[in-house]
């Protein structure tokens, strides 16, 4: 079991390393109707803010852009992010954000999931709800 945790941590680190090479811009986007403020982004991705009005928020990680996101938005390491979520999930009984492979998967998820929020390394398409740009 310890091995699984190590692999999970490694994959997070590797994803961060890969994504840092993708580009300089980072866009936080949400499902239409989720009008979050830029200041809410950190709380949403650390499980502190789980609802927008009555809508349950569903944050997802983007493996390709995660390192950039952790660095620019959450300002924490991948290890710290993983342990924070481990504690959060045990204490509060909530799951950490699902990790999707790339921008396209994130975009697709946000498009079809009510309350979905994610971040992209590429500019979002026309009409997407952009919460913040880093």
């Amino acid at each position, binding site marked *: *079991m*310890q091995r*699984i*945790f190590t692999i999970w941590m490694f994959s997070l680190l590797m994803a961060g390393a890969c994504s840092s090479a993708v580009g300089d811009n980072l866009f936080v986007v949400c499902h239409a109707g989720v009008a979050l403020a830029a200041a809410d982004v950190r709380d949403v991705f650390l499980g502190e803010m789980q609802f927008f009005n009555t809508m349950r928020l569903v944050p997802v990680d983007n493996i390709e852009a995660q390192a950039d996101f952790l660095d620019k938005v959450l300002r924490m390491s991948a290890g710290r992010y993983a342990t924070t979520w481990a504690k*959060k999930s*045990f*204490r509060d009984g*909530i*799951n950490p954000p699902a990790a999707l492979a790339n921008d396209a998967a994130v975009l697709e998820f946000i498009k079809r999931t009510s309350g979905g929020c994610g971040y992209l390394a590429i500019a979002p398409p026309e009409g997407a709800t952009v919460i913040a740009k880093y």
Partner: protein
Amino acid sequence: MKRATDKLIALQFLAVVLPIAVVLLVQMAADARRAARLEHSRPLRILASEARANYKTFTNGAADAVDTGTLGAQSVKALQTAAARLTELADHGEAAVVGDAESVVKDLAATLPKGATLSTLISLRSRIIESDTLTKAVDDEFERRDEFVVKDAIASAVYQKRAVTGALIITAILTVLFVLATRRRLKARLEADISAERERSRQAGMAEIATNVLHNVGNVLNSVNISASIVTDRVRKPRSAGLGKVAALLQEQAADLVGFVANDERAKHLPVYLAQLAEHLARDQEVTLKELDLLRKNIDHIKEIVSMQQSYSKLVGVPERLAVANLVDDALRMNAGSFTRHGVNLKCEFEDVPEIVVEKHKVLQILVNLLRNARYACEASGKPDKEVVMRIAKQAAGVQIAVIDNGIGIQPDHMTRIFSHGFTTKKDGHGFGLHSGALAARDLGGALHVHSAGAGQGATFTLDLPFKSPEAIYD
């Protein structure tokens, strides 16, 4: 009547008590039901709460394991306790509520018998989170049940308030209806009573008027009888019989009437006889005319008594301006025969007084009564020197007529009752004369008083009359 009133009061009491009693009984039943439900749910709620608290102890321990690397024994024990509480809940018949929570937590406890490393916990994270959701759902369900009971109690209190308010409104309406019904019933009864009382009063009034008429007419009828007797005596013993004899003698001597007058001794007495006869006839005529005049006055008085009594109902009188001495003379004449027959000496002491405006026959009624009583008192005393003094005196605001006798007098304890209706000391009396006299005096704006030094000391009745009676003031 009393039974009907008691029934009404009982109905009113029921109207007030029943609605409130029904509401209270319903509420007591509801309270008992809630108490039973709470009694049943409370231990289950405690079990669910303990299961949840122990599971949270376990998850906190798991969270701590992120820092420490291992799950402590206390956390494992808490997990096992949570599983045991869920099992107890299922055993208490709450399996439907517990659902999968028991098996999932139990499996988790079996997987972590003595503790675990962080990696083990990470690998079990989805099950830990699932168990967390399930134990929370169980705890929430029992909490919801308690909340439901509390909400039910609050709703019941609100309902109770409305019901009591409704009961009070119904009670108030019923009370008002009962009060109105009672008032209507009492009013109808009162009106019936008043009507009956009015009828009784009317009959009593009619009886009093009839008694008054009979009494006063009876007084006058005595004088009428005396006058009628005198006239009858005069008619029965006609002095004209002698005149017939003279006429027959003259007819016998018709052939030689001159010789008869010149030579017959009987003819010599004829002129004296005829002169005396004429004188007697003239005196008889005078007495008869006087008695007939008195008779006419008495009959007029009877007529006036009757018409006066008739006018009582209309409260109408006819005041006249009269000389008081004439009024008193009339009253004396009506009783003169009676005084003479009973040997009562009558003395008059009249002052000069102004004329008064008064209803003549009311005053006559009073005076005739007083004189008759005075004559009776003198007669009853048996004294040889029976005397009645009739006195007229001027007062500041009117005239005083006093009838003073030296008869049997009045006992002190009779003084206060002497004008009361029905009070009399005469064997054949009715106790009406002085009573009606006092009322008549009051009607005239005056007053009738009595004074006596006691039994055997005689009595003085005084009639005070104003110069103008109240009826005349408005003329």
